[in-house]
């Protein structure tokens, strides 16, 4: 059974390779497509929107100084024409592209950049991404309500923006490419107030034409978008409130082009083994690691030997089968696509005898009782059960607490509350493809606070210092050295075993047969669906 499943999954993957090879498809001009989601689109305000549905739409509605080449994690100047970084890594000077216009017709100028980033940081905006801009001089004053703007952003003329940083930040160019750094027109934001998220105006590849609440959003191509041959479709309609199962049926009948919620687990094998599998399933790696956070401040999990024993007790191969093989076992926090991933690192191998011996050494020869929190959405309770069985094999009795995501997150952020948490359903894609994004909030001391996301409550001052050192290496020439330093932070912390890295889950999107292009523009590492790049073939 095992082998059969693995073979099928492999065959499926191999069947997909021609897609990436991209024969001689030509995009059809003038096409519009239909995309479905189950949930409403929350908001298209780039300073606020922060979920995986609106993330890719905001990407396509607005432009930013920096952008990624579609399907990759390669940074390129976008709204910026060029940029310079001083050797100390503290001053970034951007020259703006000329003649770029907002969809209301006004030209984008340097003061728009300053306004937009100040708005993202301003507490009144209630934006979740304010912290990303922490390196810009004057950040503390604005975020603490003591100033109205950021002293570190200067606009000597309409075509130049200068950022002065208070500390070197090697991720700064990535920061300027995330949605929170999208450029918005001040006059429209002020006129619309909180409704800007429903009536967005930007300078991206698409324009929002219509939004019928609870039903659909209609996006139209921006005819004057500054990137050549982009976008490749004339528009897309997002239909919301669509049950994934029904969306899939509609997709098979050609009514829907992309079923945004993917393929429900119950239908996966049927579709995968169906005749159209190669044409409709896009299966790609993403920057994601599913893990068990072990609370280092709860007894007896505060004992490192206990945490190591738990690491050795988990049969990760078996757990990947619960998600129909749509994942690869992991041994370190970083996913393989992330710079710094150490492919030679072995981690803790599955070894029940050794785990039992370690537990005995730690003073728990007969195991102990604890609790495992998990999201109540499928397949997470089933994964929690598999973990529970694995722990039971070394004598650890873990009671499963399957709760709504919000309650798991609350328990994780309360000191001494949740002994262990399975992250599935709550750990989302990385904000940008840089290892630092996998450390600070979820493994660093800064996240080990009330309401934080460091559910292991792990705080290692030495590693924090190394993290700061790595993030100070902003010279692009030191890229590899920096990635290596970051990688060592993650592999070294595994000695303390605050996590059980379980698997790296691949993302699955269902698309209609007429959709063309490589899989990595449907599962773009920085965008999810890259609306700028996808096209209709034939």
């Amino acid at each position, binding site marked *: 059974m095992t082998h059969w499943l693995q073979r099928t999954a492999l065959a499926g993957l191999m069947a997909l390779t021609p897609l990436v090879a991209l024969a001689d498809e030509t995009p059809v001009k003038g096409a519009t497509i239909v995309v479905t989601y189950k949930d409403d689109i929350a*908001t298209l305000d780039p300073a*606020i929107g922060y979920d995986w549905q609106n993330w890719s739409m905001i990407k396509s509605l607005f432009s930013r100084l920096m952008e990624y080449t579609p399907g990759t994690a390669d940074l390129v100047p976008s709204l910026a024409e060029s940029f310079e970084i001083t050797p100390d890594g503290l001053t970034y000077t951007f020259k703006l592209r000329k003649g770029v216009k907002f969809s209301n017709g006004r030209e984008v100028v340097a003061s728009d950049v300053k306004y937009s980033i100040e708005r993202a940081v301003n507490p009144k905006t209630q934006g*979740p991404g304010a912290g990303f801009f922490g390196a810009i001089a004057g950040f503390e004053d604005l*975020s603490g309500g003591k100033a109205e703007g950021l002293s570190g952003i200067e606009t000597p003329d309409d075509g130049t923006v200068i950022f002065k940083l208070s500390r070197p930040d090697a991720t700064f160019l990535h920061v300027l490419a995330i949605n929170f750094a999208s450029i918005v027109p001040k006059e429209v934001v002020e006129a619309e107030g909180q409704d800007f998220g429903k009536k967005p105006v930007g300078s991206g590849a698409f324009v929002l034409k219509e939004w019928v609440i609870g039903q659909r959003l209609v996006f139209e191509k921006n005819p004057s978008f500054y990137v050549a041959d982009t976008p490749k479709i004339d528009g897309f309609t997002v239909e919301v409130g669509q049950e994934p199962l029904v969306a899939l049926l509609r997709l098979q009948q050609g009514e829907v082009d992309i079923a945004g919620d993917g393929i429900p687990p119950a239908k996966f094998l049927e579709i995968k083994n169906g005749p159209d599998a190669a044409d409709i399933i896009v299966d790609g790696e993403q920057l994601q690691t599913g893990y068990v956070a072990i609370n280092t401040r709860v007894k007896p999990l505060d004992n490192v030997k206990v945490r190591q024993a738990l690491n050795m007790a988990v049969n990760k191969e078996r757990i990947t089968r619960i998600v129909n093989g749509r994942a690869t076992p992991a041994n370190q926090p970083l996913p393989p696509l992330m710079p710094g991933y150490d492919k030679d690192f072995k981690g803790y191998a599955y070894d029940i005898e050794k785990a039992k011996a370690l537990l005995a050494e730690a003073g728990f020869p007969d195991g102990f009782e604890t609790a495992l929190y998990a999201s109540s959405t499928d397949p997470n309770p089933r994964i929690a059960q598999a973990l529970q069985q694995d722990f039971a094999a070394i004598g650890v009795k873990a009671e499963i607490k399957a709760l709504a995501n919000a*309650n798991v997150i609350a328990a994780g952020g309360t000191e001494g509350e949740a002994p262990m948490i399975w992250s599935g359903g709550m750990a989302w894609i990385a904000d940008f493809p840089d290892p630092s994004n996998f450390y600070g909030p979820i493994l660093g001391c800064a996240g080990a*606070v009330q309401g934080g*996301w460091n559910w292991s409550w792990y705080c290692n001052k030495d590693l924090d210092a190394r993290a700061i050192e790595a993030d100070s290496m902003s010279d692009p020439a030191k890229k590899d050295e920096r990635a290596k330093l970051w990688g060592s932070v993650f592999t070294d912390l595994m000695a303390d075993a605050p996590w059980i890295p379980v698997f790296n889950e691949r993302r699955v999107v269902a698309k209609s047969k007429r959709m063309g292009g490589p899989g990595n523009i449907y599962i773009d590492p920085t965008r999810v669906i890259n609306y700028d790049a996808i096209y209709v073939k034939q």
Partner: protein
Amino acid sequence: MIELILRRLGGALMILFGVAAITFVLLYALPADPAVQLAGRSATAQTVANIRHELGLDQPLIVQFIHYLGNLVQGDLGRSYTQKTEVMTLILARLPATLILMVSGILVEVAIGLTLGTVAALNRGGFVDRLVMTVSFVGVSAPQFVVALLLLYVFAATLQWFPMSGFGTFSHVVLPALTLGVLGAGWYARMVRSAMIDVLNQDYVRTARAKGVAERAVILRHAVPNALLPIVAMIGIDIGQFMGGVVVVEAVYGWPGIGQLAWQAIQQVDIPIIMGVTLISSLAIVIGNLVADLVAPLIDPRIRAR
């Protein structure tokens, strides 16, 4: 009559206040922190604190509640945490779909229920009666999800008589209304049957029959109207229930009703939306019952509106 309406509306206000207070306390007693939820994984503690402050969540519960009531009195339900849109706008946008589904669902269930119930009552104890009661039992117990998907698969996906999902034309409403109607009809059929049996045993029916009134007239003119009373009360309850949203049916057919809004809001701890939907549906229940009480005397003059 007017005095009754006023008195009942006054009572409704008290009920709404109670509902608001209880929901508010329950929502804030939840361990889930909306600010943490909104801020996401990468937010700093400062960002979370800022968001909490901007939403007023750092104030004592009673202050927050008074603030909420103050806005409520002015018809302001606040803004959604996640969407930032006014809750009233979100609810109003979904109201037409909810009303259409409510009315058509009730029409279907009453039509089916009334017919089956009457037929069963007239054949009391016979084969038809037992068949109807069995069918209605199945209808009452069948899960909405199964019936909805079954109808969708047969009539939309396979036969393609109706669209699979969406909203806007008559053909869109057929399957959702049928799902609600078929499932709800069982209750009505059973209720009508027992009311009819009760009425058919009354002296005045026997008298009517004895004086030679045609059986058809006996049933339509004497029996049915008198059996309608409990049905009116049931419709009143259904109005309230359907107004609160029929989550499953809406989800399967992509019907943009209030139920979907509520369901998403609960998952996202979007307190203003949860409060708004709860209040609107409680209001609907109160109004539904009031309407039922006002209609009852029209059907049966023995009942005085009181």
